[in-house]
């Protein structure tokens, strides 16, 4: 297992053998020469690709006689035709409304979930900007059944108009519950709309209410036929199985489906902007202000090296009560009661880096913003310490061990990373890659993307959630 003390020492003393897999993960100016250290693979996953293009990834885990079966489609809200926002998510709901495929069976609306439950299992699905995924967790002897039914709904959706109409109402209720009833969600929706101008990430996954109401069967089926195909999906299975057995079952089930002529993903890009954006929502149901700032930064697919550096930076700036921002703003300066700094590198296009704080009072907001900027400037000017780097890496590597302590967790992690463009090797060797991130790289990404004096070609968008009657005189982010 990980010998953490050795790693810390080696990181400081030895020589780095660069990686071939992600060349950008190393830094040619790296002074922290480190030796190539053998860090165990995280999941030891096995993979195989069927003739029809379906990639299968299996994580064997024999702790409990259960298995998680997940199918990930490389299609999400950001792939929707213009004016049809919410269609990817609507389709996800409709996949539970009945399907049939020759050789794989015929299933009534709601039947798949009922079968899963009868077997003591769990099932659900979710949609993001870049992917849509469906999963079941069941006793291992039922895996083939799950694979058969899931394979059938990959190409055999058969949904009635009346079910589409009633599900549209359900989705409207879902939107009211998640977004319209919730001032914080309303603000975030608008912040993203501003941050991703001329890019589909500006549109919420659940869709705009006025467009969701109008979605029809033809549009939905066209979207389904175009994107739901074995060559546009990844199957991830974790649990008490033998990889070769899974590959064999996959061949008998998913293997009978033809591949489709799935269009290549095309996304619009945003022009460089120069103006700062501040979005303020005064809402009568808000009693506690919220300060938010979101930045556009690279995803892992776009720039693996910078993405890894941002992950370590997240740990240093935002990892709990001993992180830089919490110590400075919550403990020392008492400008906030809570603060977060988050980054998620698994996205096809730009990722979001977010800073979010609960100001200690409304009249402290400007001071809080200034203090956050000062922390960023300090980071850019002075960088981080050796200790911050090595401690963060150690903690992140420990998290990788904890990640194995779960049934569906590994399938989840592998799924969303692979479907957004990481290779399986990237995931397996993450602990090792992280250990090669240098102080210089971290300082460089901070300078490039978070510099308050010289914002990158997309300045961040700042949001304020405020009570109704109190007006702020603030003009904009600095």
């Amino acid at each position, binding site marked *: 297992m990980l010998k953490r003390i050795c790693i810390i020492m080696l990181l400081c003393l030895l020589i780095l053998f660069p990686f071939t897999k992600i060349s950008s993960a190393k830094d040619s100016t790296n002074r922290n020469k480190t030796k190539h250290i053998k860090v165990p693979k995280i999941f030891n996953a096995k993979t195989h690709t069927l003739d029809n293009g379906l990639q299968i990834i299996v994580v064997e885990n024999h702790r409990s006689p259960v298995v998680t079966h997940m199918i990930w489609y490389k299609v999400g809200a950001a792939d929707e035709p213009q004016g049809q926002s919410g269609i990817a998510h609507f389709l996800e709901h409709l996949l539970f409304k009945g399907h049939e495929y020759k050789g794989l069976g015929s299933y009534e609306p709601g039947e798949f979930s009922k079968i899963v439950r009868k077997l003591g299992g*769990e099932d659900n699905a979710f949609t993001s900007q870049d992917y849509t995924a469906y999963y079941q967790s069941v006793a291992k002897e039922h895996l083939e059944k799950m694979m058969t039914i899931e394979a059938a709904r990959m190409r055999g959706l058969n949904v009635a108009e009346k079910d589409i109409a009633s599900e549209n109402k359900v989705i409207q209720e879902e939107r009211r519950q998640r977004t319209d009833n919730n001032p914080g969600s309303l603000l975030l929706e608008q912040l993203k709309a501003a941050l991703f101008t001329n890019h589909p990430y500006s549109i919420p996954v659940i869709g705009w209410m006025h467009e969701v109401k109008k979605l029809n069967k033809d549009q939905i089926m066209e979207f389904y036929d175009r994107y739901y195909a074995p060559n546009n999906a990844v199957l991830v299975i974790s649990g008490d199985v033998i990889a070769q057995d899974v590959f064999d079952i996959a061949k008998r089930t998913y293997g009978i489906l033809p591949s489709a002529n799935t269009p290549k993903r095309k996304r619009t890009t945003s022009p460089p902007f120069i103006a700062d954006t501040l979005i303020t929502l005064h809402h009568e149901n808000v009693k506690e202000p919220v300060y938010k700032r979101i930045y556009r930064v690279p995803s892992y697919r776009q720039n693996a090296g910078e993405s890894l550096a941002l992950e370590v930076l997240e740990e240093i700036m935002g990892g709990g009560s001993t992180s830089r921002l919490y110590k400075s703003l919550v403990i020392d300066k008492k400008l906030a009661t809570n603060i977060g700094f988050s980054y998620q590198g698994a996205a096809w296009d730009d990722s979001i880096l977010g800073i979010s704080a609960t100001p200690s009072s409304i009249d402290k907001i400007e001071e809080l913003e200034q203090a956050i900027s000062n922390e960023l400037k300090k980071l850019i000017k002075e960088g981080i310490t050796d200790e911050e780097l090595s401690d963060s890496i150690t903690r992140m590597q420990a998290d990788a061990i904890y990640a194995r302590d779960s049934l569906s967790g590994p399938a989840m992690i592998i799924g969303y990373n692979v479907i957004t463009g990481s290779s399986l090797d990237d995931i397996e060797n993450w602990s090792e890659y992280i250990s090669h991130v240098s102080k210089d790289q971290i300082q460089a990404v901070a300078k490039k993307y978070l510099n308050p004096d010289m914002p990158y070609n997309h300045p961040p968008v700042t949001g304020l959630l405020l009570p109704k009657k109190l007006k702020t005189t603030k003009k904009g982010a600095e």
Partner: protein
Amino acid sequence: MRDKNYIKFLLIIFCLLPFSTFAKELQKPKFLDIQVVKDEKSNITAWLVEDHSIPVIAMSFSFRGAGAKNDPIDKQGLARLTSNTMDEGAGDLTSQEFQKTLRDMSISLSFSASRDNFSGALKTLSQNKEKAFELLKLALTKPRFDEEPVGRMRDSNKSRIKSSLSNPRWIAARIQNDRLFEGHPYAMNSGGTLSSLDKITSDDLRKFHKTLGKNQLVIGVAGDINAKELKKIINYIFSDLPDVKIKETKKYPLQNAGKTYIYKRDIPQSIIAMAQKGISRDSKDYYAATLMNFILGESGFGSRLMEEIREKRGLTYGIYSYFRRYDEADTLNVSTSTVNKNVKEMISLIYKEWDKMKSEPVSKEEINDAKSYIIGSLPLSLTSTDSIAGILLSLQLEHLPVDYLDMRAEKINSVTIDDILSVSKRILDKNSITTVIVGAPKGIKAEVITDIPNVE
């Protein structure tokens, strides 16, 4: 995401029955190989499931009866604030030193306070276990409650309360607890109020800490540790704690039965929270009630409420029924939400399901499906080290025997359709439901609540 936020875990807890004296197990493979580890010197017992496949150890423990129900009315939130500050410095370690050691060694340690119990959870990699046990012992025996972290956690709690005021579900739950448990400590806000939190001092926390006794302890441990070592460890961590006087508990009847309350708020969707009397865990009907509730609304997709209200009519994104069990009260709840204009229809549809469950037997298919899920889903709740430790804790909190999981399937299978009908007739009573609505519903007759209780 299709909403399905019921927790399978709860289902297992809902099926728990009291100690059964006649249980003589046949020789068959055990569901979980639970070892009962007792340290004779301190009289502390822990249940253990060894698993060396991953280098992780998880421990969950509760001080039974030491939860928020004991908070003085003017110091609501005392147990919660104590739980927030127990890991903020202990012995010679200041808050920052304590937290940094936890983080640097990737040890997760947290405390929490429910209405009934004061609990903690520890998770560590095997390689750091000595430090993890040492820090837990320090936190339990020598917490510092320094002014700075106490003030910080107080502010953070006040901020949480103010943020929650944007959340209509939170408001509905607050009003529901206030009305259902009127006159009982459960009606208080266990998270504290804006003014009560200001009244709690470090000395109050120190006083509260002295109420945690080793004779109230219940412990579940799972992972990379053996019984011999655990025996030493529980002695090391817990034996310095005092013994305390244990209070009797007795059931308190629900208040304000049959009333409807509304808190008006200009939001597009109303939140509906309903509750009536539930079933006690030592009732002979407990398993029948569990199956009834699963069919009624616990199971999400496939439940009667979900099928009638979401799947057939598209009136909501989610509707669930669930039992809540406290030491001193039992409730059966329904929670859902719908666009304002449909609230009235929604409530009448829920009543209709109450009537149907009481008047007609459930189908053979319904009972069989419910049984097979409740029995078959158990392994899925035992897939991580901390979830196993959590189950071991729950079993003991419910006073269940160590071989309970092996007997559980039989108990569930023995329930008949008639049992379900008879328990439905006995406990379901739509006229006794207390309903709380937050939103701007149309055509609802209700008592209007203008101030959310126990917030200011």
